[in-house]
């Protein structure tokens, strides 16, 4: 098990190396540079050129890449040009917001998607089934940005039921431990903050969950339908096993394997969706920061954030792979 995990983590190194080449050179291919957003509109061409020079952007690109790798070896991503703070610090400050939002979205998707998919399959052809299929189609089709804006207009602006933005009301006082507002407030017993943080998570969480919810519902439905037709389910039923046991231990457990794989892969779409959702809800996570960094050609920030996201993506998928063993005793990690 340990060797397997180590092997998977070591596989990260060439993957990250490849990614760094791709990202580094791709970013430099974009026209313009940070000197155009760092200096005011009236800065002369000479002043902009001088800044490029001081930032080391006039060095040969291979030299710049070498310097970047050297820093990377020390796990130093440099400093964000737009905020003037270390990239790593920016990431650790913002990551809890995105993680909390992604977890909320995934919880909504899993808690609603799996039961919905399961019952849709059990009642194939029913109204519930047709609604689930149509609903999941809609979930995939509606752009996250549009859904987020609509949810906000209805529930925050028109009805005033939920907050329209932020992770907590502006000026809210709370004790920070991990940066995860819900967790921190539970740990410190500030339950009014917990309530507020949960309230702020509902709309962005719902918006961000639309695609994972649709995918999980459809996959669960398809997978359950397939398992229901298997001989071992019929055998279990004919043996006179309790229906609950058949459903949970024989049907659901076996149907979960492809769904779990999908959940791992959906992490990527969650992070992509977070860019839009966070902007709409001024959520202040890594998504909106990447967007702003790209606008400003903040090379160190874009590179650093994308590399760190890649690491997280791989780790999440590793955890998902490891969780197979919980569902399928035939899968053994070697």
């Amino acid at each position, binding site marked *: 098990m340990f060797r397997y995990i180590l092997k998977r983590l070591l596989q990260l190194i060439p993957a990250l190396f490849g990614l760094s080449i791709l990202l580094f050179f791709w970013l430099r291919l*974009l*026209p*313009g*540079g940070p000197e*155009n957003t*760092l*200096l005011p*509109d*009236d800065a*002369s*061409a000479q*002043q*902009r050129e*001088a800044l490029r020079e*001081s930032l*080391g952007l006039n060095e040969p690109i291979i030299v710049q890449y070498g310097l970047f790798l050297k820093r990377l070896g020390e796990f130093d991503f440099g*400093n964000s040009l737009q*905020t*003037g*703070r*270390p990239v790593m610090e920016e990431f650790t*400050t*913002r990551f*809890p*917001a995105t993680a909390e939002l992604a977890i909320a979205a995934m919880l909504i998707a899993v808690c609603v998607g799996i039961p919905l998919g399961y*019952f849709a399959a059990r*009642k194939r052809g029913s109204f519930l089934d047709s609604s689930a299929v149509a609903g999941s189609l809609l979930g995939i089709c509606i752009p996250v940005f549009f859904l987020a*804006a609509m949810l*906000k207009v209805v529930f925050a*602006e028109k009805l*005033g*039921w*939920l*907050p*329209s*933005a*932020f*992770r*907590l*009301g*502006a*000026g*809210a006082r709370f004790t920070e431990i991990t940066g995860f507002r819900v967790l921190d407030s539970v740990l410190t017993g500030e339950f*009014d903050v917990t*309530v*507020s943080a*949960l*309230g*702020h998570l*509902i709309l962005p969480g719902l918006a961000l969950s639309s695609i994972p919810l649709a995918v999980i519902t459809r996959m669960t439905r398809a997978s359950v339908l397939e398992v229901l037709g298997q001989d071992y389910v019929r055998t279990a039923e004919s043996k006179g096993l309790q229906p609950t046991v058949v459903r949970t231990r024989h049907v659901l457990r076996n149907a979960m394997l492809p769904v779990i794989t999908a959940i791992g892969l959906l992490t990527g779409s969650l992070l992509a969706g977070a860019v839009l959702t966070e*902007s*709409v809800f*001024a959520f*202040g996570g890594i998504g*909106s920061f990447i967007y*702003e960094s790209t*606008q*400003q*050609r903040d090379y*160190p920030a874009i590179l650093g954030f994308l590399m760190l996201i890649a690491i997280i993506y791989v780790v999440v998928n590793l955890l998902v792979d490891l969780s197979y063993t919980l569902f399928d005793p035939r899968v053994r990690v070697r």
Partner: protein
Amino acid sequence: MLQSRVTRLGRTALIGIVGALAVSLAGCESERDTGDGDRNETEPFVFGVPTDARTLDPIFTTDGETFRVTRQIYDTLLDHEPGGKEIVGGLAEDWESSDDGLEWTFQLREGVTFHDGEELDGEAVCANFDRWHNFEGAYQDTNFTYYWQNMFGGFAENEEGVDTEEKFRSCTADGLTVTIEVAEPSASYPGAFSMATFAILSPGSLEQIEDDEITSADSAFPDYTQGEGVLAGTGPYQISGWDHGSQEITLERFDDYWGDNAKVKTLIFKTISEETARRQALEAGDIHGYDLAAPGDVEPLKENGFQVPTRDVFNILYLAFQQETTPEFADLEVRQAMAHAVDRQRIVDTILPEGGEVASQFMPPTVDGWSEDVTTYDYDPELAEEMISDAGVDGLTVDFCYVTDTSRPYMPAVRDIFEIISSDLEEVGLSIDPKPMEWDQYIPATNSGQCSLYLLGWTGDFNEGYNFLGTWFDRPSDEWGFENDEIFDLMSEIDRTPDPEERAGKLAEANEVIMDFLPGLPISSSPPAIAFAPDVEPMDVSPLTQEVFADVSFAEE
């Protein structure tokens, strides 16, 4: 059996959803609960801004959003009248310059206290100027000290590669009198002394940060610039906290402020980068005001009871005619034809926010030196078509660059403006080749003369015409691609005229010469829109976007 389970599950889910909603509603209520006391004392005033500040030491930046925050914390020697553009006393009650414009003497106010309890005196002011003048190493990069170099020149000892001429000579203190000596007169004075970047920090703060370093052009700001605890100014608010994750800066009222105390106890600047999200946050009651409202949002906001006070204009949008890239533009008749071709009034009426106006010259009428006697170019497409035909450039194809990913206070809805101008120019016989670009690509392209036509503009730093005209016409440049010694000499003369009235006269003359030569077409001046909730008593809004937040308050119920 299954049916009953589904029903049970549905019931459980329903209870869960209702419960979650109830919980969140309770959360919403608790956040909007204003309590029984005076709202100004119990509730923070939350202002939505498009980007977070960069540093709490304003000398290191040129960023307007940083200055919006630091203006509430620190004072400068001079200031602008609240809601106006006239320069008035800040920390200095009185000021005068020598006849040659080389010596500026400031008489400081008595009884001004810094947030850390120190008293303001001349030594404190000079300690700040000396600090800036003696910056070394990476501090000398334009990334950190752009405004110092533009306004006061180089440093006591310029590093290799820094060739900015030294303009600042010395700062001498005598009690509450401060004398600043400069190497040459400049139209930038006294305006420069009102710039937020030259904020006066307490001597105690300066001592604490003495050893902090910036090591390279891309290095991080020192820690003290990123939160409370070290920096102290004399402004109506002091720093209470900066939550970088939530992009939220909290200021608390400074009760020993030398002027009228701030009306609201707690002031929060909260970043909401998306334009629509800012409006929605205001409508939902999550914030109490925001700046840079989209022109299209102004009327709907007003209809719903929100306040959108109109600022006086203090900017210029222009269409540049690059004469080197397109030699046909060197013909004055062609430039005049293009000026007659563009329906600027239509742009003002249909795109710009209320308060916008057609520009007759390269500065807004609010700036001293604006002339009533410039040559004007009325919209006359028939005349334009005739002139284009006479000049023999009928059918000429020209590149027209416009920016796609950003707007500026002087240039909202860029694409709409571009489309009106393009269709007007095509109407009179030119053929337009559109060149959409991102800002990042746009600036180098316009700077290096790659665009025949492009849209740009400027918002003034202070009330000084040279701050507008000198930005573009003080030298030959690739941005415009023309040689005109009359204009360049006039600019140089204006920069060296210390007397403001005399300078205004020369600026008016320069405006007339420039509008006869017509290097580009001034399009409009437009005020960026600022919005407030219905239950707020806004401060006087400033043409320079330098609102004094100490004057904002919640309306009494």
